């Protein structure tokens, strides 16, 4: 219809220039490094300005995106029913599926053909709405023979959502940090790394090909290493940084192998859209997809703290609290979840998600939810409780993606980012008040009287995390449970019993351990020796903003039955799903959507409330007897041997650290090392000795026969020849002029004779 023009105008400036968003904090990193220390606020102002600018751009991009998606939906609805705006809006939509733009000032970046819906198919089923097709802006990076590698940005619902989350939380964390790490010896360095981290995460989020994703992924890992080890003077902190880095390296191998597999399996392309399209259309072999998915799952396990590679995440709490909030709760650890979402076509086909009852991703996620939740019970350190809670919640997200509930997983990522950042920053505020201790049992208790704002926001965050309606966590968790497709009347993409049961258990566990944490921190008598006080406005303001978000963001994705039951405007339902999940495009699988179930929501909420209530009663009873009870006993485990055994397992974190350091590393050090030594001494050295002896023998032979016998002889002979001929010729050289003259005249006479005879 309005072919080229419509497509040109449809691509907003914010999409083609999305690269500016990561570029801002990246520039800030460089500026802070070079000039930070000389500035009045030691570089914090640069970081905050850059991230704020990035946030503004991200918000504008988000609104542009939402507007475009709404227009697409509206045009489809109108296209079916009326003709009113059909011409202009319809034209936009049809052209937007392959919408691709190249940089105006680009060198020679050709148009990159984003796989589009075949036009014929779309005309056949006009009612089938396409929305949210990724918009790729690329230019040639380098080319090698026939293979051209591109670099660019990919804007779609998922990346826009992450852009918003990362810049929003990063901005709040920057502001919070100005107070929290005030007076730190590496204050400027800290802000530089926060900026670099933000840039790396945004770069990762906007990657249009898997090569860029690997770069962003590794950059994020490096920043994480730097920030966990921010206070590296203490060995525990640098050990934690190394542990995080090495554990991530394990998964990175999976990432590399998986990406390379995908590259070759999809016909030499790194392009995300193309890989997904080929996977979904069946062009890529299922075996390759399966191998790639499993390798990438290893990467997800390490980065997103899935069982059994989650062990680095709690130790990563050694970093400053704002870092924990930004990296290890809200943004970096979701990189793995984001990876699944980004390559969802690959996982969808590779792991055969639809119509089955279990797969590797769902199983790992389910085990992680419960495993992380249980571990949260035995922690004394408030941040470690939250860390294990993060592990557990990441398990939810992976479960959701594993059972095919894409929107539920992404929505949980979205809501979790806000309430978990709120909780982490709250924990930082608490510790700020208690002499920088995180020990709930020794140094906290009764803090609600001293820090009302922190208390209130922490409660809101905890309720959201525990999934108490109507806070954010309730909606997203409920969607995940619905998405397993087990509960009667939900009808998802399969019947995933195990994830469902584990998810329900975790719903209870979450409420219970958060109740324990709140009780130990804010209720009872104060057990520490400091003089707790409320934190300053630069700490409490981000908390209040995040708590507010934790309340409201859940309403973005209200289930349709609820909206119709309560008589709310129809537009309020499944907003998030429409904005984030693409529909009817080739690079995204056709996902079945489970329908919400009121009994299930009531059941899960009741479970959470009940678990919270029981935990509350338990701790109330325990502390009624003795306000310092927790210092020396936890009550239950001193009376019940089963509980004691369970505690021991949990206290040792399922012995996973023992497995890694003791058995795997120990075996490497011990038997394997001595075996390697024996092989080294006896076999390799033997081979080397034989080779050496042979070389010596060969050398001797060469010396005696070739060097001495032939080469030297030749040299000597030539010398002797020269000497002999010289001896002969010196007889002519008498010094007698007359003799020379004789020779000269004789020769001349001879020549004359020759001439005369010859002529």
């Amino acid at each position: 219809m309005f072919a080229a023009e419509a497509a040109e105008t449809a691509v907003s400036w914010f999409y083609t220039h999305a690269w500016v968003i990561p570029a801002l904090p990246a520039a800030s990193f460089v500026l802070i490094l070079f000039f930070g220390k000389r500035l009045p606020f030691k570089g914090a102002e640069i970081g905050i300005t850059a991230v704020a600018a990035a946030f503004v751009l991200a918000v504008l991009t988000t609104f542009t995106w939402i507007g475009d998606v709404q227009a697409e939906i509206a045009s489809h609805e109108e296209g079916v029913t009326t003709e009113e705006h059909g011409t202009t809006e319809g034209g936009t939509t049809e052209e937007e599926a392959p919408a691709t733009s190249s940089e105006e000032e680009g060198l020679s970046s050709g148009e990159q053909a984003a796989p589009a819906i075949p036009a014929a198919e779309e005309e056949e089923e006009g009612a089938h709405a396409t929305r949210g097709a990724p918009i790729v802006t690329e230019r040639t990076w380098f080319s090698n023979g026939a293979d051209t590698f591109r670099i660019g940005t990919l804007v779609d619902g998922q990346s826009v959502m992450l852009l918003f989350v990362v810049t929003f939380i990063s901005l709040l964390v920057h502001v919070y940090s100005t107070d929290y790490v005030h007076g730190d010896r590496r204050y400027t360095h800290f802000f530089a790394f926060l900026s670099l981290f933000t840039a790396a995460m945004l770069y990762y989020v906007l990657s249009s090909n898997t090569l860029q994703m690997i770069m962003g992924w590794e950059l994020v890992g490096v920043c994480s290493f730097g920030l966990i080890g921010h206070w590296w003077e203490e060995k525990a902190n640098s050990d934690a940084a190394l542990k995080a880095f090495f554990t991530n390296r394990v998964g990175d191998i999976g990432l590399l192998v998986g990406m390379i597999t995908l590259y070759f399996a999809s016909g030499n392309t790194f392009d995300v859209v193309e890989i997904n399209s080929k996977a979904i259309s069946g062009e890529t072999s299922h075996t390759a997809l399966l191998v790639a998915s499993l390798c990438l799952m290893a990467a997800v396990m390490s980065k997103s703290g899935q069982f059994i590679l989650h062990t680095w995440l709690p130790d990563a709490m050694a970093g400053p609290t704002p870092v924990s909030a930004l990296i290890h709760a809200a943004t970096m650890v979701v990189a793995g979840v984001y990876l699944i979402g980004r390559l969802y076509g690959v996982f969808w086909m590779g792991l055969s998600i639809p119509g089955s009852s279990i797969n590797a991703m769902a199983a790992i996620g389910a085990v992680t939810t419960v495993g992380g939740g249980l571990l949260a019970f035995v922690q004394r350190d408030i941040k470690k409780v939250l860390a294990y809670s993060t592990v557990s919640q990441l398990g939810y997200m992976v479960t959701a993606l594993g059972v095919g509930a894409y929107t539920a997983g992404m929505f949980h990522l979205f809501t979790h980012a806000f309430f978990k950042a709120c909780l982490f920053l709250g924990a930082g505020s608490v510790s700020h008040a208690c002499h920088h201790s995180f020990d709930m049992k020794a140094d906290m208790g009764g803090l609600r009287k001293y820090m009302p704002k922190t208390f209130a926001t922490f409660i809101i965050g905890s309720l959201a995390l525990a999934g108490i309606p109507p806070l954010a966590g309730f909606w997203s968790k409920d969607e995940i449970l619905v998405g397993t497709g087990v509960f009667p009347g939900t009808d998802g993409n399969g019947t995933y019993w195990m994830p469902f049961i584990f998810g329900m258990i975790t719903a209870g566990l979450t409420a219970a351990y958060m109740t324990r944490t709140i009780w130990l921190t804010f209720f009872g008598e104060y057990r520490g020796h400091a003089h707790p006080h409320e934190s300053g406005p630069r700490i409490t303001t981000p908390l209040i903003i995040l708590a507010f978000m934790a309340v409201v963001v859940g309403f973005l994705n209200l289930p349709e039955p609820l909206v119709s039951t309560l008589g709310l405007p129809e537009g309020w339902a499944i907003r998030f799903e429409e904005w984030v999940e693409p529909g009817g495009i080739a690079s995204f699988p056709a996902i079945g959507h489970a329908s919400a179930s009121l009994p299930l929501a009531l059941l899960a909420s009741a479970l959470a409330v009940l678990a919270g209530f029981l935990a509350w009663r338990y701790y109330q009873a325990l502390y009624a007897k003795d306000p310092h009870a927790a210092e020396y006993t936890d009550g239950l485990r001193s009376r019940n041997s089963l509980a004691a055994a369970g505690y021991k397992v949990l206290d040792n974190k399922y012995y996973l650290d023992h497995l890694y350091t003791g058995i795997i590393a120990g075996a490497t050090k011990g038997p394997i090392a001595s075996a390697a030594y024996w092989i080294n001494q006896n076999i390799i050295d033997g081979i080397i000795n034989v080779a050496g002896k042979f070389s010596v023998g060969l050398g001797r032979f060469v010396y005696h026969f070739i060097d001495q016998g032939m080469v030297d002889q030749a040299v000597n002979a030539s010398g002797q020849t020269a000497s002999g001929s010289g001896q002969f010729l010196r007889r002519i050289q008498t010094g007698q002029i007359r003799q020379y003259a004789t020779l000269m005249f004789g020769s001349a006479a001879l020549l004359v004779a020759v001439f005369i005879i010859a002529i």
Partner: protein
Amino acid sequence: MYLNQFLILAAALFCIGVYGVLARRNGVLVLMSIELILNSVNINLVALSAMNGDVAGQVFALFVIAVAAAEVGVGLAIVLLIYRNRRSIDIAEANLLKG
């Protein structure tokens, strides 16, 4: 013209000169013998020039005389230096280049 007589004279002078160069040990006599050789050539040049009616040969002879004068100057200087060093002008003794 009796060209042959001149040529025979020149050849005789040449042979005497060559003999002098080869046989005499006195440096001055060797130089004088060289003069004989050069002058025998000059006789040849002039005789043949006269026979052919071309003055180029005579001009050439003048050149040879000039060059010979220079040669004698250099040669006598050498002989003088040999005499100063060795108190003798016997060229058989000047054999430092003997190999």
